[in-house]
């Protein structure tokens, strides 16, 4: 936990410096007739962020904050696997949006989560994997007219154009 506290404060400190540098692409001083330049607001905010990171590191050295006193491990192996599997499956699902679209990726995510992580029976898995995309489609695409990603054009043309013709 101690190492993680220091690492996070350092990474955020570097990010603050980057933000200051990036803000300075726009004027950060006073412009006559226009007031503060466009970069001033984020520049000074980033400067305060940087000072906060230094204070967090000072507290770390003095062992003032709870994470800097803790001798626990930040994440044990089991936690890394449990959280990593879920986070990883989300990343893969979003990446699949580009290929098979939301309605192809959602059933796959449901099967992975309900069957393999949740260890539910196949009938429960199948119900979740079919009902959730169907409800999503009718609520978002049809009722609210918010078009969700459909993946490759061929999928949209062959599956969704006929569906839209029926329901819209």
């Amino acid at each position: 936990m101690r190492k993680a506290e220091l690492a996070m404060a350092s990474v955020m400190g570097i990010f603050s410096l980057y933000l200051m540098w990036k803000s300075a692409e726009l004027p950060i001083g006073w412009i006559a007739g226009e007031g503060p330049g466009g970069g001033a607001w984020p520049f000074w905010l980033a400067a305060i962020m940087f000072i906060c990171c230094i204070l967090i590191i000072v507290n770390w050295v003095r062992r003032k904050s709870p994470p800097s006193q803790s001798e626990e491990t930040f994440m044990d192996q089991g936690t890394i696997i449990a959280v990593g599997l879920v986070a990883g499956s989300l990343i893969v699902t979003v990446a699949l949006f580009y290929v098979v679209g939301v309605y192809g990726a959602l059933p796959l995510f449901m099967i992975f989560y309900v069957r393999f992580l949740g260890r539910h029976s196949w009938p429960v898995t199948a119900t979740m994997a079919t009902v959730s995309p169907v409800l999503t489609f009718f609520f978002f695409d049809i009722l609210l007219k918010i078009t969700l990603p459909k993946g490759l054009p061929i999928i949209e043309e062959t599956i969704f154009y006929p569906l839209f013709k029926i329901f819209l």
Partner: protein
Amino acid sequence: MVEIATQLWGGFLVAFEPLNLMLIILGCTVGLFIGAMPGLGSVNGVAILLPLTFLVPPTGAIIFLAAIYYGAMYGGAISSIMLGIPGASTAVATTFDGRPLAKQGMADKALTAAAVASFVGGSISVVLFTFFAPPLAHVALTFGAPEEFSLMMLAFATFVGLGGDDIPKTIFSICIGLALSAVGLDIISGEPRLVFGDIPGFMHGINFLVLAIGIYGIGEMLWTVEENYKAGGKSMLSDATITVERTISNLRELLGTWKTAVMGSFLGYFVGILPAAGATPGSLMSYGIAKQISKDPDKFGKGAIDGVVAPESANNAASTGSMLPMLTLGIPGSPTTAILLGGMVIWGLEPGPRLFTDHSDFVWGLIASLYAANLFAVIINIAFIPAFIWVLKLPFTLLAPIIFLLCLIGGYAPTQDMHDVWLMLIFGIVGYLMRKLDYPLAPAVLAIVLGPLAEPALRQSLLISNGEFSIFFTRPYSGPIMISALILLFLPVLAIVWKRIKSSMAKA
């Protein structure tokens, strides 16, 4: 007074026409569900259903939209309490205590408190609306950029002074939220700003919902996955039950929170009237004040019932309040009222002082329908609580993928840009790691909401004063607000100094 009562009676006759009554009930129900979806709020509900209203007469149409607005304000609390994901920015403060209550198996208590507090907020504000519309609208108009910025400072200061978290981490969280809200086009010069890696997705800025759903949705769920793993797969989102006896005892406990509800309603109503302020700062300030005046402030953030009542009464009162400048002056106080205003213009109703005389049946019909919508919304909301509780009792491994699904779609829906979905995942994972290290993340979410209001207010104020910061202290309304903000901001430092003086005196 008699004249107002007669007109209000006439309004009730309009609101209780069968078609209008049906529209009120339908609007409240639709609004409740739209508001309860993470990522969709009253703005989406009103905007999406606006075209449908052309099927009914203008009075019915605005009544329907106002009922959706009310229903959605009630619904926003539902996902805050049940899932810990604020459905809209106005419900962010509700998560602070609503979520801990749900985790302790008291989701029914939190949901009932939210519904009843919303009803109180709605009722008080609609009475204020009926009797004090024009004079209040004029007070609100005297609020300029310096006053607005001072109000924002007060909202942030409540976090630093009262949050009880690590101070450098709280300030860091506020500043990163404000800095992220600056991404996109600079509002004054129009130049691109903080466009990381020249990725075009950053040009439209970072939507508040991307950060909120990332942190509260994905981040919170990863946190629960970890807890679930540590508990050997037995952890649940909420082990809630609901019985008649529990509901009665919940309602009895709520009677003790009447002071908080009344305070929240008045405060929320006034903040709601202010142009560009609206329900989010109102609910946050109400939460901060409730904590300050509470006899047991340490309970806040851990499941205090007052912590749900304060923001919920305020955000509903603010939603009524924000209709006031829209009707009397033609200035919308919130994004939703801006769309309502658009609707009114389409129907040929010109908002402004003359609306009350030229179309009095319309105005009073709308005001009366607010009374009716408020009543129906609380009834519908309470009727659905058992269903919400049932959903919470589903096994975690079934509920979790549904929530992730809602998060992914909720992140995509507002801008319909895949860039935002990726950004939401990144915020979720980083937010989860930061939360493990005790970084408070709620201030970041509020900062990204208030940032787009705070920055122009600051820049305009400085432009007026030619760079002099004294402008915030010398104006009659801005001065006291800014001084209170600074006192709150330095409260932790003052407390440390006071402790040292006391201990050195004790030693001597």
